[in-house]
């Protein structure tokens, strides 16, 4: 495939019910009312020269390059700012226009370095293209006058440069930052000739400015002023392959632009329905880990975790692993074996790992990292609505009137979706934030929350019940909706429960610390403000009451009729790229693909027939139970694909002890991660750039992942699992992931109509994709809930057993930041570390002062479980009594201090509430030092003597 830049229609697409027909250069064209003449021309295959217009931002009309003539109108209007009208007759190419455009171009070029031949944007520059298009041959003005050619390049951003000498002051970058990203980091400073793009204050460079490195300005820039460093280093791309980001649950699609076998840049794909052409710093730029020197490319084994690793061939690795697995199974039974699927791997890979466990190992001991993030979503939404997924597509937010964000920090964790949300908020939608921290959304340029309810960590259920109390007792519930769509008796039980005086905001204020008047106002706004949409994250799920909170959210949405149409709904923001998919694919120990219980003999029968084996009808172990069972000797071997449970799971000591107790730990990953310190077999993994497959994002959107280069380790991850299965005696013979998807589709009703051909045709599909909805389902529960009647579940506020007291007076809550991802295995191996070198502890000034702590000081963070040290950041983002940190760096190991308290229904760990003490410290704890030396020792690789 050759290299074609993405089409640019000049101005954004317009939605309208009315169509307008006009004539452009003799051709008749019909477009939605409100479309610009420029876009209409582009849509019928024409092209009007332009510089300041691009279809990601609103037209600005400053360059005067896009002039046209319109019959019956005087002058030469700018086509980018002129809307179409019925019967208009437009001419885009006349001698007069040609002359005018050439004159404009000449002025631009006279202040532009004429080093096209050596410029990195040569042949990929709109200025150059436009100059050619208008036929500019020579410049009359020369460079003798004032110009901008001597300005120095700002190379402070690790991924792109800003070379102001090439800037034509078109302000596309400024508008992209404002309209697309919503960060407002750039301005055009000065006027007229002196106007110049600047990042924040005059003294700021890009790195020190508000810029979040999303790349929107780089993509919008028509010249080489803002350009990826990699284009300079590697050269212009020669081909492009569309694929899906492997970081977060937004699921942005990108064009991987390649030169030979080298990835030059990832450019957000305009046709991507999840991201609509936008991106964040991670997907756009932070892919350097894919060929980082730490990546391990050869399989390794060792008898004991005390030994150094020994590099072996793939054949030996599979034979050894299979023989050990079979031996353990023979001696201790199938239930001594298990596996963990990865939400970073594809649907097909995840499906194979759970198949290997169920059909090959013969147990149901399969779990996934969703255990530690969104398992309560699975439980809560299945119980109330009948299926375990968000109800809306992302586009839906553009029709929301009231947006309620609870326990989520979208600008950091789901940045591209956050940009859409901010755009809607700038249009006037109201925002309610329920979060112990003052997250950025609460107040940022042009966005301000109507209500921020800074609750005490761990009291989500109490806050939501109090909101329900207000809605029921003030008669704001949507009775018609409830009668039609839900079980009325269940509703009345629930309404009676929440209406009880003990659930009033005034009574619960003592527990939640949310002022009752604010809470009442927020509840009224959600119930009566038009379309109400709820977005939530791990601040909801990672609690002892995670599942109750999810159900409490579902109750609120049903009670107010905010479900079943665009603009409303209940939307979990998923952490990892394929966490939705890994759950869909049967990664939970009690469920087969499509959320069907393993005890259901009809479903089990389907799989048994297809796979030709008998399946265990009993649910298997969850991750924490696997670790417990390892300690009691009944669980002995674990295959972990693409997860680092030692770092990501709570109570690190307990995880380490569990892993250490196992006979055989198989880690299949890109890197020798922290868990690999306890492994006996290391199987090298492949990156998302090296394989075919699909990911499913937080809006249930199934999207293709396409191989853009050969796996550096020789095998894609699905091939590794298949080879292991074959070595254990399974007769698998998949030649391409498309065949795995065919198996998924024939065994999973919600995927019945999914195939690679169908995906190719549609671009992406949102499940359910079946006979009833052959093109997928952007919004769910439209005519009825998946389970029939929506179910109101009484959710009592049962406080966590983790209590503060004199020894541990503060509450620790955890989260993440924009530039890093999860345990950081990938992002720490990219230049993103310039934004986040280490995990910091946020502490309120009052708590800091009591303890004599200043920003930058080392502090000891201790809980009943363990202790660690890190540096303090004194800030009033957190409330008094609350401290906050991230868990991106192994050196900090925040999970040494988290406990094994967990959600009552799913055992999702309670990361968000740990009672702690904080005190000044001199440096790392004994644990950190001994862990650091252990981690180094456990990574030794024996070098064979040279032959």
């Amino acid at each position: 495939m050759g290299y074609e830049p993405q089409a640019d229609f000049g101005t954004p697409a317009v939605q309208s019910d009315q169509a307008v027909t006009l004539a452009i250069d003799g051709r008749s064209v019909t477009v939605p009312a409100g479309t610009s003449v420029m876009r209409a021309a582009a849509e019928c295959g024409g092209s009007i020269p332009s510089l300041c217009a691009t279809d990601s931002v609103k037209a600005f009309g400053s360059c005067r390059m896009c002039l046209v003539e319109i019959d019956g109108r005087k002058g030469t209007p700018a086509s980018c700012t002129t809307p179409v009208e019925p019967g208009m007759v437009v001419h885009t190419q006349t001698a007069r226009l040609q002359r005018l455009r050439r004159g404009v171009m000449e002025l631009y070029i006279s202040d532009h370095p004429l080093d096209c031949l050596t410029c990195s944007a040569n042949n990929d520059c709109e200025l150059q293209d436009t100059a050619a298009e208008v036929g500019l041959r020579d410049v009359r003005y020369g460079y003798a006058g004032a110009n901008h050619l001597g300005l120095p390049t700002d190379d402070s951003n690790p991924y792109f440069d800003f070379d102001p000498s090439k800037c034509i002051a078109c302000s596309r970058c400024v508008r992209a930052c404002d309209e697309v990203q919503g960060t407002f980091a750039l301005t055009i400073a000065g006027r007229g000739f002196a106007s110049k793009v600047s990042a924040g204050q005059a003294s700021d460079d890009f790195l020190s400015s508000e810029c979040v490195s999303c790349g929107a300005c780089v993509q919008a820039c028509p010249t080489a002023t803002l350009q990826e460093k990699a284009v300079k280093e590697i050269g212009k791309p020669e081909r492009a392959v569309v694929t899906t980001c492997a970081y977060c649950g937004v699921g942005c699609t990108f064009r991987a632009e390649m030169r030979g076998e080298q990835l030059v840049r990832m450019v957000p794909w305009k046709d991507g329905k999840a991201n609509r052409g936008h991106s964040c710093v991670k997907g756009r730029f932070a892919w350097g880990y894919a060929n980082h020197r730490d990546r391990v490319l050869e399989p390794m084994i060792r008898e004991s975790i005390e030994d150094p690793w020994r590099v072996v061939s793939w054949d030996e690795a599979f034979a050894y692993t299979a023989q050990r697995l079979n031996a353990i199974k023979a001696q201790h039974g199938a239930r001594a074996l298990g596996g963990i699927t990865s939400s970073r791997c594809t649907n097909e890979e995840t499906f194979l790992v759970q198949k290997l466990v169920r059909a090959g190992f013969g147990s149901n001991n399969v779990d996934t990292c969703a255990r530690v993030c969104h398992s309560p979503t699975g439980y809560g939404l299945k119980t109330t609505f009948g299926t375990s997924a968000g109800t809306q597509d992302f586009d839906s937010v553009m029709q929301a009137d009231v947006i309620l964000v609870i326990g989520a920090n979208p600008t950091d964790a789901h940045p591209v979706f956050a940009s859409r949300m901010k755009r809607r908020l700038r249009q006037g939608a109201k925002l309610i934030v329920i979060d112990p921290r003052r997250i950025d959304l609460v107040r940022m340029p042009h966005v301000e929350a109507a209500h921020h309810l800074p609750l005490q960590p761990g009291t989500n259920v109490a806050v939501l019940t109090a909101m329900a109390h207000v809605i029921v007792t003030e008669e704001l519930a949507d009775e018609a909706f409830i009668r039609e769509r839900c079980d009325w008796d269940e509703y009345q039980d629930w309404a009676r429960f929440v209406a009880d005086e003990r659930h009033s905001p005034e009574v619960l204020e003592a527990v939640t610390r949310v002022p009752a008047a604010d809470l009442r106002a927020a509840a009224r706004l959600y119930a009566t403000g038009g379309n109400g949409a709820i977005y939530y994250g791990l601040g909801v799920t990672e609690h002892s009451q995670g599942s109750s909170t999810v159900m409490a959210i579902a109750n609120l949405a049903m009670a107010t009729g905010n479900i079943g149409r665009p603009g409303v709904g209940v939307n979990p923001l998923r952490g990892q790229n394929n966490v939705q998919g890994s759950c869909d694919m049967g990664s939970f120990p009690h469920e087969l693909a499509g959320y069907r219980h393993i005890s259901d003999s009809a479903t089990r029968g389907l799989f048994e027939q297809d796979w030709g084996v008998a399946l265990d009808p009993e649910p298997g172990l969850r991750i924490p139970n696997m670790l417990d069972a390892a300690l009691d000797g009944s669980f002995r071997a674990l295959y972990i694909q693409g997860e680092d449970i030692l770092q990501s799971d709570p109570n690190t000591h307990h995880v380490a002890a569990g892993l250490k107790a196992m006979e055989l730990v198989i880690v299949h990953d890109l890197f020798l991660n922290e868990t690999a310190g306890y492994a006996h077999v290391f199987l090298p993994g492949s990156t998302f750039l090296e394989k075919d497959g699909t990911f499913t994002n937080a809006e249930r959107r199934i999207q293709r992942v396409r191989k853009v280069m050969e796996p550096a380790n020789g095998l894609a991850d699905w091939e590794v699992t298949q080879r292991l299965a074959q070595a254990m005696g399974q007769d698998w013979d998949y030649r391409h992931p498309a065949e795995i998807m065919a198996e998924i589709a024939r065994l999973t009703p919600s995927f019945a109509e999914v195939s690679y051909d169908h995906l190719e045709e549609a671009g992406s599909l949102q499940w359910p994709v079946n006979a009833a909805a052959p093109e997928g389902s952007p919004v769910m529960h439209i005519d009825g809930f998946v389970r029939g009647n929506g179910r109101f579940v009484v959710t009592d506020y049962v406080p966590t057993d983790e209590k503060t007291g004199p020894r541990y007076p503060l509450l620790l809550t955890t989260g993440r930041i924009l530039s890093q991802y999860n345990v950081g295995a990938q992002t720490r191996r990219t230049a993103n570390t310039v934004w986040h070198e280490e995990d910091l502890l946020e502490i309120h000034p009052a708590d800091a002062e009591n303890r004599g702590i200043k920003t930058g000081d080392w502090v000891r963070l201790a809980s009943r479980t363990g202790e660690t040290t890190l540096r303090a950041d004194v800030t009033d983002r957190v409330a008094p009594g609350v401290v906050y940190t991230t868990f991106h760096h192994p050196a900090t190991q925040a999970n040494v201090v988290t406990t094994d308290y967990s959600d009552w229904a799913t055992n999702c760990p309670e990361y968000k509430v740990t009672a702690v003490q904080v005190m000044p410290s001199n440096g790392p704890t004994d644990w950190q030092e001994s862990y650091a030396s252990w981690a180094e020792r456990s990574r030794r690789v024996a070098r064979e003597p040279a032959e």
Partner: protein
Amino acid sequence: MPAGPSAAAAWPANRRSSGVDLARLHHMANQIARNLAAQGEDAAIAATAQHIRDFWDPRMKAAILGGDRSPLDPIARAALDRLDPA
């Protein structure tokens, strides 16, 4: 050298490291029962029993059914009696 970091002091004294962790299973069962209690006693007992049936691995069920049930809350205990009337 012991395998793994040897910070023995970092091990919390209140967490055991071998043998079937009955205390943990009791805690789990009680937590389920307490969160379902608001549904009313009968419904809560049925739901607790169903929850354990649906989500617990056989060895966990066997351990809690075979163990001392006295540390359990009444709803959790009644749920287990329903799973195993013995």
